[in-house]
């Protein structure tokens, strides 16, 4: 039962990633693209956690944690750049 649930979840998250990619390519504004990238990162975390459950290995935890940290910092830096034209003043 667990395996079936994981397979279905892989499909659902894959669809979600495709939708994010659509928004990333389509735009129309830079902020839409940043939002799409951020969501892509968070969905990737979900995918990694799911893969960790599937392989019953907790080695992927650090990857997910780093992705969460780096995704957030990247998004903040990009927003800051849009707002101020500069990241560190």
């Amino acid at each position, binding site marked *: 039962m667990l395996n079936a649930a994981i397979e279905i979840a892989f499909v659902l*998250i894959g669809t979600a990633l495709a939708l994010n990619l659509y*928004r990333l390519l389509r735009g129309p504004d830079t902020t839409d693209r940043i939002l799409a990238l*951020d969501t892509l990162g968070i*969905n990737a975390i*979900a995918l990694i956690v799911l893969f960790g459950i599937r392989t019953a290995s907790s080695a992927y935890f650090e990857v*997910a944690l780093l992705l969460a940290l780096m995704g957030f910092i990247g998004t903040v830096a990009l*927003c800051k750049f*849009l707002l101020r034209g500069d990241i560190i003043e």
Partner: protein
Amino acid sequence: MSTATESAVAVLILLGALFVLLGSIGLARLPDFLTRLHGPTKATTLGVGAMLLASAIFFSSGTNEGISLHELAILFFLFITAPVTAHLLAKAALHRQTGTQQSDSGTPVRGRDGEKLPHPDKTS
């Protein structure tokens, strides 16, 4: 692992994946930026949160390595950062929509609906 925990993990995984998908549907489908912001900040955060909980339960009920709590750290972190990301993105979007050039004099800019918005970095 007992059947009860296994089904709990399965349900959490499915719910999580469903909410992740709903967040992305919102992102792709809604008409303008500020409405699009709603999907990823909330549905996606909740979805990933459910998935992390599933992972914590799964590894805690495993055989060898005792309880597994570190997923909660990611969960905590995501729930703290989601509003910050949304706030900065919304600010950036409003800033761009007004079309006014950034000036350091702190002159108020006009929002989309003609409201007065504070200067993006002059909130203190």
